[in-house]
């Protein structure tokens, strides 16, 4: 079975009397080791889909299997477990704890699965070194640049060795030079065998991926594979 399989996913928000269909029957399959970009206009449902895939939210209808486990019917605690062990999530706004050091931020997922303080420290250090921030571990987010913050967030996403790395517009708040750095890092992580899904508005960024899913009004409009020669970055 594939890493991700969704079948006819719907997400509907009740806005008073009105219903907003953020997703209208999304059926996709993503294999282990893929590098996928999700594109689409603002409000088309990209984030909604990412949140479902990342188990931060549950679909109104439809089914979702992650690693052969049916996630769409899991309860809160089971979802928390999946988020903790299977998924690394990188957000546009970084979502770091502002008062905690980079190291503590990266340790955070490990706190909730009972990793010992010693192991926590070692794993977080390794993850921070992986994103080239070994010399900034005691800095707080406010003492780091935007790119560095996003790299801390990536270290946090990676620290538990997840099966899936999700990034919702990871370069959305960064300038183009810093964006290139972050994309390089993602490319490298993909090369090391991670499965990556990234949401973006920018064609440049999307072209780092091997496959682009285009969303329009909550439906998958296009599913294209990017030929090797058109890809950005080193693969």
């Amino acid at each position, binding site marked *: 079975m594939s890493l991700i399989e969704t079948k006819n996913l719907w997400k509907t928000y009740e806005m008073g009397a009105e219903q907003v269909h953020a997703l209208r029957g999304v059926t996709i399959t993503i294999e282990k080791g893929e590098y996928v970009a999700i594109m689409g206009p603002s409000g088309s449902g990209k984030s909604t889909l990412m*949140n479902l895939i*990342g188990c*931060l*939210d549950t679909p109104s209808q439809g089914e979702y299997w992650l690693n052969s486990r049916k996630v769409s019917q899991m309860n*809160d*605690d089971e979802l*928390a*477990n999946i*988020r*903790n*062990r299977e998924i690394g*999530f990188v*957000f546009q706004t970084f*979502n*770091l*704890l502002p*008062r905690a050091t980079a190291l503590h931020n990266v340790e*955070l*997922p490990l*706190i*909730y*699965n*009972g*990793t*010992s*303080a010693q192991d926590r420290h070692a794993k977080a250090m390794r993850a921070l070194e992986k994103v080239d921030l070994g010399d900034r571990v005691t800095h707080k987010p406010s003492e780091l640049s935007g790119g560095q913050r996003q790299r801390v967030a990536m270290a*946090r996403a990676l620290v538990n060795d997840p099966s899936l790395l999700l990034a919702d517009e990871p370069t959305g708040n960064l300038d183009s030079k810093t964006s290139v750095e972050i994309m390089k890092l993602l490319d490298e992580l993909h090369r090391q065998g991670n499965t990556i899904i990234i949401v973006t508005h920018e064609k440049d960024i999307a072209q780092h991926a091997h496959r682009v899913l285009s969303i329009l009004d909550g439906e998958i409009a296009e599913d294209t594979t990017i030929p090797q020669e058109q890809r950005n970055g080193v693969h």
Partner: protein
Amino acid sequence: MVTGSLFGIAFDALRTNRLRSGLTLLGVIIGVTSVMTIISALEGLTGSIEREIEQMGPSTFMIGTLLTAMSEQEALDKFKRKPLDYEAVQIIEDGCEVCDKVAPRAARGEDLKYRDQSMYDIVVVGATYHHVEIYDLEVDQGRFHSYEDDLYRRRVAFIGAGVYEKLYEGLDPLGKDIWVGNQKYTVIGVAKKKGSVFGASQDEFVYVPFDSFRRQFGISRRGLYISVKARSVDQLQEAMDEVRVLLRSQRHVPFDQPDDFDMLTAESLLTMLNSLTKILRFGLVGISSISLVVGGIVVMNIMMVSVTERTREIGIRKSVGAKRRHILTQFLFEAVILTLSGGIVGIVAGFLIASALVGMLNVQMNPSALAITAGLTVSTGTGLVFGIYPALKAARLDPIKALSYE
């Protein structure tokens, strides 16, 4: 493992908000302080009264016309009773088989004088030499009066430490004169100092032989108190029964009427004292727990604010895998650390106030284990009770909504 980390997280959160945490605590501190002070004061007070009562000894009982009254009406009714007279003492002495000692006692207020030193309205007690054998009245200097003093109605006086300090400061009191009312007595002994209960000195009294008292003052309208010591603790009840029969016949009480005198043992006094302080304790602790409830509500309020302020933090924690119970525990820890530290401050403050009261009121204070346990339990409980709602609210937040909270 996880719990330990959550405790650390809660602790850090409070530390970064020190001033607010401190202010939040005021209510809890005041509440615990008052609970502490009240319990300590009550324990101290009952402790000193208990010691006083225990001087009576377990095989002794007291007879009087007005020893207890549960209401004003009862007191007024008893006040009208025929007083106990000296004949009653003799009837008990002659008729009670299992009575070991019978000690009559009469008392009144009189002025005392030695040279140019005076004291006014001091309790003068007429008592027989048995008195020291029944009550545990400790002699510091000289002696209590003897059988002969009683027999020959000698004008000798045994004085309290307070009287000694006022009238004979720096002198050897033994053999000195003392004017009791309009009669001159000779001091033969001084009692050991007892201190005071609630500001009232326990050391201002004069004992004179019973018959000397009778000769000087007669027997007052209030009559006598009679203390009776049974031969043994086991025979206490029997002695009381015998005395009851003797007194009822002396006082011509019809068989279908209740006693027209009171009898009290040390034990029944202690029982009365206990029921009294129990009411007091519940009442006062009840009142002071109002401030704890107020303190608890303040804690709840500040925890609600904290949860709202930290919605994003909660979202972040949930997005990396924190479960409901992790968030719940974290915020409960915060509430309990808050109230518990307030409780500890309150206990220390209560202890200090209690010790200060010792100086002011001369009450023996007991900051006992009971008070400390009560303080700790109550403050932890306050944290749990008032922290649970904000913590539940935090735990139930939806991760997506929490993450997008501005």
